[in-house]
């Protein structure tokens, strides 16, 4: 079964500090893509960062970076220098490459609070 687990329903971080959101997934496929999405209170889901499973190098987008451990099937998101605007629900997701349809598998989300 294809599953995504986010074990932290809620997290909080002090403004300007660093926080790591965890994500693990289960798939028998070897080729897939991983994503972190952000859903602020306005509800629009926004892509934060993506990682190709065949790449060993961890993806980085400004203050956002991932720690991708393929053998452990772990894909955590690190947010550095946290800002108030980072407060949102964060969803981890993946899509297997051979799937020409759209089946994305989403985790249950982590609600991040940024404390001023």
């Amino acid at each position, binding site marked *: 079964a294809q599953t995504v687990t986010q074990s932290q329903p809620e997290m909080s971080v002090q403004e300007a500090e660093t926080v790591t959101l965890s994500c693990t997934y289960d798939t028998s496929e070897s080729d897939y*893509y991983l994503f972190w999405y952000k859903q602020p209170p306005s509800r*629009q*889901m926004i*892509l934060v960062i993506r990682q*190709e499973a065949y790449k060993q190098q961890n993806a980085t987008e400004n203050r956002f970076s991932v720690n991708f451990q393929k053998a452990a099937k772990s894909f955590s998101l690190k947010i550095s220098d946290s800002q108030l605007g980072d407060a949102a629900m964060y969803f981890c997701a993946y899509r297997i490459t051979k799937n020409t349809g*759209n089946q994305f598998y989403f985790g249950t989300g982590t609600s991040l609070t940024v404390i001023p």
Partner: protein
Amino acid sequence: SAVISQKPSRDICQRGTSLTIQCQVDSQVTMMFWYRQQPGQSLTLIATANQGSEATYESGFVIDKFPISRPNLTFSTLTVSNMSPEDSSIYLCSVRGQNANTGELFFGEGSRLTVL
């Protein structure tokens, strides 16, 4: 990226009624996807809307309950029929990005339905 507009953004509906949600994309896309996000839960794919053919429904979702239209490559509608309080959710329209490899999803702002 794609700009996706959904309406209504929110509505309060009476039990037994039906509501149609509209989704407009700023570019032509082959597939449009409808997701449901129940309170405090992750995203569940309802169906894939293909232009020129019937929508493809995921397990647990049926056309009679969630009829979908796809009249052209930039527009789709989802109807939630004969609503009950259990249908209270956020309904999200999404499309695949232009990157054919990673295929990340882009989302509309969602339609929050409350059924009384």
